[in-house]
């Protein structure tokens, strides 16, 4: 049986794979964090036997492969009734669920996972070092807490600077008709000038002059690459430019770059992920980041890669092994 750990709400990357599993008539179970707390299924985790019982039946042996798809990204809400303690309570309940999840990972550690447990939330800075060690170019990157060092970095960066959050916590703040989101933004002299002498440690990178972006979906050694270009790029973050102005084309990676990507994924112990690169006008490729649970559908559909089917086939193959 295939165990899918995902969202209760809509998760665009999960449904198409599930469709292929249904078509193949392969047994699978889709579990979310909400399932664990909602009173709709009877289960217990027997710590002594390291097993999970659903309706009294052991399921540990039947789970042959696990697909992790953003399970921890959606935590059940403790609700407004908690009043002023809501934030603290939410943090404690989320930690409780995370520990429960970690134990499930422990008892299923011998199964093949896509991607491996504990590898889904990477440290962006650490990944840059692994990319360097794999032979990839990376942008000049600094975490700075003061205006003086930032000004110096800005002077030494002819193409300008960008800033983004170190961690991938980019959840939108929705206020009725308005949504606020922390995206990659340009930092220029106008923004630096009013900054106070010291500020919260913030990630800055040189702005990479891009001919186009290359996004790679990596699956167990195979690279599916897409060249992405915005026809009227108004913003440094592609997500803000609108899908109508974004163009996708299948892309052939140079062999050397494929080797570097494989080496990076080996170092990170990842068997899947979405990798972002920039292709500079001089032909060089610059690595930006890898997301082990990144979205893949747009590239898959525009380039006809059928990545949903390839993920399903990977799961089916490992389920049968």
């Amino acid at each position: 049986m295939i165990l899918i750990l995902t969202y209760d709400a809509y998760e665009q990357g999960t449904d198409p794979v599930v469709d292929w599993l249904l078509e193949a008539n392969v047994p699978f179970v889709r579990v979310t964090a909400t399932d664990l707390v909602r009173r709709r299924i009877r289960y217990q985790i027997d710590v002594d036997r390291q097993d999970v019982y659903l309706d009294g039946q052991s399921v540990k042996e039947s789970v042959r492969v696990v697909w992790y798809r953003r399970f921890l990204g959606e935590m059940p809400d403790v609700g407004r009734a908690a009043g002023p303690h809501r934030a603290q309570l939410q943090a404690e309940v989320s930690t409780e669920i995370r520990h429960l999840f970690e134990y499930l990972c422990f008892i299923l550690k011998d199964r093949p996972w896509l991607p491996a447990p504990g590898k889904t939330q990477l440290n962006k800075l650490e990944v840059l070092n692994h990319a360097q060690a794999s032979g990839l170019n990376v942008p000049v990157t600094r975490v700075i807490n003061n205006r003086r060092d930032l000004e110096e970095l800005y002077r030494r960066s002819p193409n300008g600077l960008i800033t983004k959050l170190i961690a991938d916590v980019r959840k939108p703040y929705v206020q009725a008709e308005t949504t606020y989101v922390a995206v990659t933004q340009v930092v220029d002299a106008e923004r630096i000038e009013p900054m106070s002498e010291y500020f919260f440690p913030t990630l800055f990178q040189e702005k990479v002059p891009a001919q186009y972006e290359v996004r790679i979906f990596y699956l167990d050694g195979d690279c599916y690459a897409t060249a992405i270009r915005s026809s009227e790029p108004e913003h440094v973050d592609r997500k803000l430019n609108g899908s109508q102005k974004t163009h996708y084309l299948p892309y052939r990676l140079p062999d050397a770059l494929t080797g570097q990507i494989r080496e990076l994924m080996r170092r990170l112990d990842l068997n899947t992920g979405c990798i972002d690169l920039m292709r500079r006008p001089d032909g060089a490729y610059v690595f930006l980041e890898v997301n082990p649970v990144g979205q893949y559908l747009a590239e898959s559909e525009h380039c006809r890669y059928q990545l949903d089917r390839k993920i399903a086939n990977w799961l089916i193959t490992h389920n049968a092994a």
Partner: protein
Amino acid sequence: MNALIQEELFPEETLQRLPLSYRYMARLHSEGFQENFSHHRFSRSWMHASNAYIGTGTYKPLHDIVLQDLFAD
């Protein structure tokens, strides 16, 4: 989606305790921000329903053309 206006969500006192990225947050119309999924779905099971199984129109013809075949790279 593209109606982007720079405006701070948090008061200055809070911003001073946050990474600078929060000072430059994009302000968008909720309706147009697809990641809110209020009116947007990027995948639907009906596309794969048995009466139209993987029979949806393809965005591009199935071929082996890559960017390098179209443009000097």
